[in-house]
C-alpha cells in the first residue's frame, strides 16, 4: 500500500512537470524543473538562470498555478465523489450528476453578477458556491430518502430535476445581469476551465482539500461501515446522523471551493473513485489517498488535452471530462441495474 502511494506521488510530480511544459508554447521538462527549483528558497543557488525570461513567465506565472490548480480541483472533485458515494451508499453519486455543481453555480453566479454575498469579502465567490452546494446536497438527500433508505431511481431523478431547476435559475440570473463584462466572465467560468488560474486562487481550495482529507481519513472506518447500511453502521458504534451531517458539510465545502475556481467540471467525481476501487477495493483507508492523487493526475492531463487539441484555441475542461465520463456513467448504470 505505501508503495502505491509513493508511486502515485512520483507520477503526480512527473505529470506536473511534463504538463507545465506542454501547451501552445512548449518548454522542455528539464527547463521546467530548473525554473521551479530556482524558486525554492534553499535550492535557488544551485540553479543559475540559463533560460529565457519568457519561459520563466510562462512556467511560473501561467502554467504552474494552472497545473497545480488542476491537481487540486481533480483531487477535490474525486474525494467529493467518494464522500457523496458513502453518504448515499451508491457509486453513481457525483457532484455533477446529483445537481450539486449546478446548485453551486447558481449561487456563485448570483454572487458574481449581483454581489449578493459580497459581505464575505475576498472569499465571497467560494462561500456562495459552498452555500449552493450544501443546499443542493440536502435537497437531493431528503427527496431520495424513502423510509430511511436511499431510493436509487429517486436519487438519480431528483438529481436531474435539481440540476435542471438550478441551471434554469442560473440562466435567469445571467439574463438579468446588470453588466456585460460580468456576464462574459460568468459564461466563461460556467463552462468549466482552469484557464486564468493565478497563485492567489490556490490557497483556499488547497486548504479545504487538506482539511477535508484529514477529516475523512480520521473517519475511514465510519465511511466503510456506512457502505454496509445506516443500521449496520449504527450497530458498529457509529453515530450515523452526525456522520451524514459531516459528509454533507465536507462534500459541500470541497465542491463549493472547487467550483468557485474552476466552474463545473463533471464526472471526475464519478470516474476516479470507480477506477480507484477497481485497483484497491472499497476500504476508504486506501480509496481516499489513491483517489485524491489519481484524480489530480487525471485532471492535469485532461487539461493538457484541453490546451492542445484545438491549439491555439482552448476547449473547456468540463467538455472533455463529460465526453469521457458520460459513457462511463452509462456503462456503470447498465452494469449495476442487476444489483438494485
Amino acid at each position, binding site marked *: 500500500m505505501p508503495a502505491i502511494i509513493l508511486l502515485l506521488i512520483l507520477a503526480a510530480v512527473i505529470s506536473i512537470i511534463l504538463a507545465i511544459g506542454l501547451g501552445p508554447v512548449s518548454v522542455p521538462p528539464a527547463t521546467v524543473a530548473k525554473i521551479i527549483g530556482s524558486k525554492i528558497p534553499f535550492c535557488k543557488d544551485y540553479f543559475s538562470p540559463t533560460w529565457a525570461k519568457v519561459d520563466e513567465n510562462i512556467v511560473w506565472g501561467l502554467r504552474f498555478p494552472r497545473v497545480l490548480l488542476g491537481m487540486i480541483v481533480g483531487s477535490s472533485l474525486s474525494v467529493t465523489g467518494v464522500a457523496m458515494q458513502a453518504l448515499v*451508499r451508491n*457509486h453513481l453519486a457525483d457532484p455533477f450528476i446529483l445537481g450539486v455543481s449546478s446548485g453551486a453555480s447558481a449561487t456563485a453566479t448570483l454572487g458574481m453578477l449581483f454581489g449578493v454575498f459580497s459581505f464575505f469579502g475576498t472569499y465571497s465567490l467560494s462561500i456562495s458556491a459552498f452555500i449552493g452546494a450544501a443546499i443542493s446536497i440536502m435537497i437531493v438527500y431528503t427527496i431520495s430518502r424513502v423510509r430511511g433508505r436511499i431510493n436509487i431511481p429517486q436519487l438519480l431523478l431528483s438529481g436531474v430535476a435539481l440540476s435542471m431547476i438550478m441551471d434554469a435559475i442560473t440562466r435567469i440570473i445571467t439574463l438579468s445581469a446588470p453588466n456585460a463584462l460580468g456576464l462574459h466572465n460568468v459564461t466563461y467560468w460556467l463552462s468549466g476551465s482552469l484557464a486564468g488560474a493565478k497563485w492567489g486562487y490556490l490557497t483556499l481550495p488547497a486548504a479545504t482539500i487538506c482539511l477535508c482529507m484529514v477529516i475523512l481519513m480520521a473517519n475511514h*472506518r465510519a465511511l466503510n461501515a456506512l*457502505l454496509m447500511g445506516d*443500521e449496520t453502521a449504527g450497530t458498529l*458504534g457509529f453515530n450515523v446522523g452526525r456522520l451524514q451531517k459531516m459528509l454533507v458539510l465536507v462534500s459541500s465545502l470541497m465542491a463549493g471551493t472547487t467550483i468557485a475556481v474552476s466552474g463545473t467540471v463533471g464526472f471526475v467525481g464519478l470516474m476516479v473513485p470507480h477506477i480507484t476501487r477497481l485497483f484497491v*477495493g472499497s476500504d476508504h483507508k486506501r480509496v481516499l489517498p489513491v483517489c485524491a492523487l489519481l484524480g489530480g493526475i487525471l485532471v492535469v492531463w485532461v487539461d493538457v488535452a484541453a490546451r492542445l487539441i484545438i491549439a491555439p484555441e482552448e476547449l473547456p475542461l468540463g467538455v472533455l471530462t463529460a465526453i469521457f465520463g458520460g459513457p462511463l456513467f452509462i456503462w456503470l448504470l447498465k452494469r*449495476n441495474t442487476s444489483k438494485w
Partner: protein
Amino acid sequence: MKLQVENLSFAYDQEPVIENISITVKKGEFVGLIGPNGSGKSTILKNLYRALQPKGGVVKLDGDDLFKLNYKQAAKKIGVVGQENSLPFDFTVEEIVAMGRSPYKKIFDGDTLEDKEIINKSLAYMGIAEMAKRNYLHLSGGEKQRVLLARAIAQQTDFLLLDEPTNHLDIGYQIQILDFVKNLKVTVLAALHDLNLAAMYCNRLYVLKNGCIYKSGTPEEVLTPEIIYDVYGIRADVSVHPVTKKLTITFLPGSLNIN
C-alpha cells in the same frame, strides 16, 4: 439479568407497531421471538439496537439504561446480525470482519496485531479463514451470513441480537448458522421464522401477534396446537421427537382433510 425490556412501544407516525412489550433475557439464555410476518419481531429488535426510536418504555442492559449509552458503548455490548443484505461495493471478507473492531477504535487508529488476531480467530471459528481475501459479493447466501456472524464475533460482545439470520438460507446453512451461534455460549435474543428451529435452539420463546406479546414461556409451554392455531391460523400436531427430545411441529393443512 442480562436484558430487561419493560413496556416498550413504537409507532410509525400515529400507527402503533408494537405495544407494551416486556421481555427479559437472563445471562446465557437463547431467547426466541416468533410470530407471523408483521407481528413486530424485527421492530422490537430494531428498537433494541436503536435503528428506531421507541415511543415509550425502559430497556436495561446489564442493569444500565440502554438508551443512555452512546453508540460506541452500545456496540461493545451488543452484536447484531441481520438478514444478509445487499452491498453495492466490493469488500473482501476480511475487511468486513475487521469492521467488527470499529467500536474499539479511536480516530486514526490502525488495526493492531491484537485486532488481526481477533479477526483471524473469528474467521477460523466460522470456518471461513480460506475465504479471507475473497470478494463478499461473490459469496453464496450462507457464506455471506457466516461472514456477518464472524463480524459480530470480532465485535466481542457477550450479547447477540439476531434478526431472522437464517432467512433465505437452505436448511443445511440454517442449522449451521444456529449451531455456530449456540456454541458461542453468549446470550442471544433472536427473531426466528421457523418454529421447529425455534423449538430446537431456544430456551424460552415470546410469541407475538399484532404487535403484542401473546404468550411467553418454554417451547413446551408456548408451542401448543391451540396457540399455533390462534397466532398463525393453521392446525398443527406437536410432539416430542424421540431422538432430539425437542418439540417437533407438523403442520396439518386443510387440504389434507385430517380430523
